[in-house]
């Protein structure tokens, strides 16, 4: 039986006075890449923040079988890494220093980085092809280069579960392909990846899709299934169509 990595039960969340998640029940299988999709305002990013325990909410979230509310903060941070949408970053920090921040959950208070920390940072920087700029400050990088560094920061945590909100923002197509390859490698290594993507053709590369609208989960299923494609077209009010090209799914707007 497949193990559940992350589970939400009866989750409600508000932004100010407005309830944006209305009783979400959802489970993510371990060792798979799941992608949350849906129209603007569906509550995708809010759900991701709730799953990372970054927003107050009602209901429960369990991580690797443990209720997250009872997990010790640093232990939780070692098991679950989060990459936010439009994550701001200090322009004056070097790339190396930024990625080393991903090791904070592993480091003892005021202790210098260990050999394991240094190895994890190098591995993450090489995986995102950012190793060569490790000494540059973030202020000296382009938007896409920054995004790769921030991705490296999330990878350096070496968590079992990775939550990423729009990780492909600012990346050019070759680096989007690199990201897809990287996610495949992570999943092959047993990690669980949950991402929010608005680029539907890329989202259709995931193992499964969670389709949201108006703060509810409308459908969850394998991204290659016809029922999932129908649900996706329906949630976008039939204004998109899913095609197959060279063995890949393409979501195109209906003109």
């Amino acid at each position: 039986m497949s193990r559940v990595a992350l589970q939400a039960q009866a989750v409600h969340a508000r932004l100010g006075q407005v309830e944006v998640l209305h009783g979400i029940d959802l489970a993510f299988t371990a060792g798979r890449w799941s992608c949350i999709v849906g129209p603007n305002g569906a509550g995708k990013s809010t759900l991701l923040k709730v799953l990372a325990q970054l927003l107050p909410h009602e209901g429960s979230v369990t991580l690797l079988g443990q209720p997250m509310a009872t997990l010790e903060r640093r232990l939780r941070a070692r098991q679950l890494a989060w990459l936010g949408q439009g994550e701001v970053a200090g322009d004056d920090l070097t790339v190396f220093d930024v990625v080393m921040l991903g090791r904070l959950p592993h480091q003892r208070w005021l202790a210098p980085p260990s050999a394991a920390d240094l190895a994890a940072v190098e591995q993450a920087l090489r995986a995102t092809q950012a190793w060569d700029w490790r000494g540059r400050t973030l202020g000296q990088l382009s938007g896409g280069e920054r995004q790769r560094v921030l991705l490296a920061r999330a990878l350096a945590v070496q968590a079992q579960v990775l939550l990423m909100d729009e990780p492909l923002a600012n990346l050019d197509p070759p680096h989007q392909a690199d990201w897809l390859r990287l996610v495949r490698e992570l999943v092959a290594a047993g990690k669980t990846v949950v991402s929010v993507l608005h680029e539907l053709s890329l989202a259709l590369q995931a193992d499964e899709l969670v389709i949201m609208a108006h703060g509810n989960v409308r459908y969850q299923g394998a991204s290659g299934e016809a029922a999932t494609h129908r649900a996706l077209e329906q949630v976008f009010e039939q204004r998109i169509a899913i095609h197959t090209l060279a063995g890949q799914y393409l979501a195109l707007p209906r003109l």
Partner: protein
Amino acid sequence: MTETTRQQRRALALGVVLSLLTTVLLLLGASVGSTGLESLRQLGSDALAWQIVWEIRLPRTLGAWLAGALLGLAGAIAQGLFRNPLADPYLLGSASGAALGVALALVLLGAGAAAPAVAPWLLQLGLTGAAFVGAVAAVLLTLTLARGVQHTLRLLLAGVVVGVVLGALGSLTMQLAPEVMQTLQAFILGSTGFVGWSACALMAAVLLPCLVVAWAYSHVLDGLSLGEATAASLGLPVAAMRAALVVVLALATATAVAQTGLIGFVGLAAPHLVRAVSKTTHGRLILLSSLMGGVLLMAADTLARGLLAPQELPVGVLTAVLGGGYLLWLMHRQGQRGRWS
């Protein structure tokens, strides 16, 4: 040599240079004053010269360094905490609070009258205490209005509101009791003229623990530079650490303001000057900004005493002119490189 190592070496070199400058300026500060080098030359033979150097020049020079170090430290914390390069130590309303405290104390102690109600030393103590209490009370009011330290924007807005309201109350006090205007103006312009050894001891006693706490929590500021949500996702107890840093910010600022008045630009400029030399993490930035603040204010104080000797310029005016001018030059240079534009 990697760029990271180069930045670390630059930070170390800056630390060494600032330490050397501190020593040189301390000697220079002991030589500058209305009697010039004469007092220094006759140090061993003349009791008055000894008194001038030991009881006036040295404590005020060292006091300028300590106040500058407190402001530099507070500036680095403020800019990291609020993720805003324009943040300065007075952002939480402490400047207006201190000024209002001093204005009220001046009125209550009858300072502007021909015969003050209290002895001069008691008046000085009262003003120092009032400035400290005013600064701390203003920060507490800001925290109350912002309902804690969790929301950066709310905290910033509350600080601005408290600053404006208390500033208006200070002006109203001046209008109602115009006799306190001159003393209050001197406080607003800043001066190290009344700093003695006890004030130095007090500032040192506050600076040391503030530096230790700020350095120990500096990785929180690094984490916050990636955003509050990311910092929290890294397992950092953001709210508790932020509260501790706000306490350090308030304490360091209030202590400096209470002893030397409202000296501007040191807290704002010191972290920028450090960053212009070395891009570094907040751990080193905090220590170097403190050193830089100390050097800036000690240099400004020495200049203020030496430029028009035996007349003295208000040190706050010099820090504003020198610090502001240097920042403008820095902005111009960074603008040419495509930053700050």
